[in-house]
């Protein structure tokens, strides 16, 4: 191979690299215009000349789904999902799910039964690994992390079908939530080193403090499985809070609660947000709760986002009304 040939190749790769740097824009364009049209454009562009600066690129504004409270506008969003999706066999359970939750936003995720809401939570907490897309938690990519890792990074949740540690006491449940907040190794535990007693005191103090958020400190010694339904739901929230999250995911927190419990819960969710300065994303079928406390709402149907906006915008959206009325027809 001649020297000139070699040099020419080198120049070529340099040019390629320059092109690679342009990808953020091209990605945006792809998202905006859809794959097919963009590819056609690209073919046209590359057809003219590879080495020259591309002149015909059409620049478009990226349609943004950023709707966050004004107070959070300049802060890193607590949670961002980009083109998130998962398939179960042939079923696209969630498809192209985009969402941004502001740093201290209370956001709602609603939709008819089987829409894929819980599946979104399972994707966010990595119970399922997404088939497509990215999740950014406070700006950090959570790709390939396990459930316990993303929890340590700052995502906590409750479950639609309650998952407490039923044979343990209320306080022990919260202590387990504090697992990564207070440290004490196995050896200190087995030999009851001074470290152990310090840690246990810390566990006790913090768990009572957290239980106090819901006024449950007096039930600390009760067995979790024996609590009434509403109290179990509250305990799950306390346990999730104990992990010191940046985002709190609540899956139907008001299910099975009576109206007065639900209204207490609404106050408490706002109180938690104000006290801990965290974001809350909640799934709920109780529209009074959703419209009452959520600042931004996403509506999901058959795994796809069909509407997004403030409570007023969502309520007025014809597609949303149809999705919900359609379901009512089926049930009737």
């Amino acid at each position, binding site marked *: 191979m001649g020297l000139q040939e070699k040099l020419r190749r080198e120049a070529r790769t340099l040019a390629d690299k320059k092109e690679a740097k342009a990808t953020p824009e091209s990605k945006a364009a792809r998202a905006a215009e859809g794959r097919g049209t963009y590819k056609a454009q690209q073919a046209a562009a590359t057809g003219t000349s590879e080495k020259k600066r591309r002149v015909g690129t059409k620049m478009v504004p990226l349609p943004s789904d950023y709707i966050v409270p004004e107070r959070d506008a300049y802060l890193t969003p607590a949670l961002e999902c980009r083109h998130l999706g998962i398939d179960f066999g042939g079923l696209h359970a969630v498809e192209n799910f985009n969402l941004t939750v502001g740093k201290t936003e209370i956001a709602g995720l609603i939709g008819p039964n089987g829409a894929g809401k819980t599946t979104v939570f399972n994707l966010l907490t990595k119970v399922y690994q997404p088939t497509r897309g990215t999740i950014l938690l406070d700006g950090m990519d959570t790709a390939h992390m396990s459930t*316990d890792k993303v929890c340590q990074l700052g995502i906590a949740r409750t479950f639609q079908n309650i998952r407490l*540690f039923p044979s*343990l006491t209320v306080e022990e449940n919260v202590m387990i939530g504090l697992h990564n907040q207070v440290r004490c*190794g196995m050896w200190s*535990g*087995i030999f009851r080193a001074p470290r152990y007693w310090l840690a246990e005191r810390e566990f006790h103090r913090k768990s009572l403090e957290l239980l106090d958020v819901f006024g449950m400190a007096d039930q600390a010694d009760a067995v979790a499985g024996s609590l009434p339904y509403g109290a179990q739901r509250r305990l799950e929230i306390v346990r999730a809070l104990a992990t010191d999250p940046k985002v709190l995911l609540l899956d139907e927190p008001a299910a099975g609660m009576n109206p007065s419990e639900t209204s207490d819960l609404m106050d408490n969710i706002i109180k938690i947000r104000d006290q801990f300065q965290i974001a809350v994303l909640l799934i709920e079928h109780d529209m009074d709760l959703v419209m009452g406390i959520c600042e931004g709402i996403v509506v999901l149907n058959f795994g796809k986002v069909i509407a997004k906006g403030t409570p007023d915008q969502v309520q007025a959206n014809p597609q949303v009304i149809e999705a919900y009325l359609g379901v009512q027809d089926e049930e009737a």
Partner: protein
Amino acid sequence: MIERIKKMGRASKSDLITYALVAAAFIIVQLLLMNGVITSSLRGQLVPICVYIVMAMSLNLVVGISGELSLGHAGFMSIGAFAGVVAASALTGFIGAPIPRLLASMLIGGILAGAAGFLIGIPVMRLQGDYLAIVTLAFGEIIKNILNNLYVGIDGAGIHISFTSVGALAMDGGKVIINGPQGAVDIEKLSTFAIGFALVVFALAVILNLVRSRSGRAIMAVRDNRIAAESVGINTTKYRMMAFVVSAFLAGMAGALYAMNYSSIVPKKFDFNTSILVLVFVVLGGMGNIRGSIISATVLTILPEALRPIADYRMLLYAIVLIAVMLVSNSTHLRMLIDSLKARLRRDPDDDGPAGEAPEGGENVG
């Protein structure tokens, strides 16, 4: 003192009762020994009883506290037994006094068994479900077969190991410690009831302290609900492994003590039947109930001996007792009856916990 006990949580109170029970049993046995009331056959059972108590408690850590089914607990016992015997011989020159030598051998047996537990755990703990049961079952059988073909001797040059025959050891004088299917031979009988009792107390303290600590709560959290445990940031693999290795370690120590209670011991002793026997102790005593394991291991080890006078009906009675206990502990009606009786008995003004919720105190979770 009494004030302090009153202030304690229900869990610590329950632990205290367990320690008191063990101490009382030791004192009673010592008194009986001094008065010569205990028959010689029962006296021979004292060390095995301690061993089986430790075996049952340690298996309960895996089955009851960690919620995994292990069917090869005798395998860890055998590793401890044979490693302990070899260690005791090898250490003769370094540690003259029998008790420290026994303790050192038990420690070595325990560490080797724990290491074996760790090695098996690496592949298995990544999986969920019944894999552990299958793998531990296979492990028990494999260890038995390896030990059946193991020849170990010791001479001036050190320890010789072979997997073919005694001849292959190429010994220069010295003595054969492990002789293939004949097992460990010419064992120096170092075990005593006092050491057995000490091991019971040690194992009890290790398990109860672990259970009441951050690590123990994580282990129970994984058992109660794996997904919830992961969702609060617990590395489930790590804590299942922790319970499994600690359990194997304690079983190894018990195995070493057991072997040095006899003059010879064969690998066949630690087969599947022994694993199941220990599992029966755990199930009868109650999953996760350490005190129950102690009681059932004691009673079920003594029972066959105590029933010797009615030799013909011995196994029949033993079986009937087993079935009866199973029925009682699995019948919801009988259980409710017992719970309500217990609640009535213990209704004292200081106990403001809701009655009948945790019938066996904080540690019963079965």
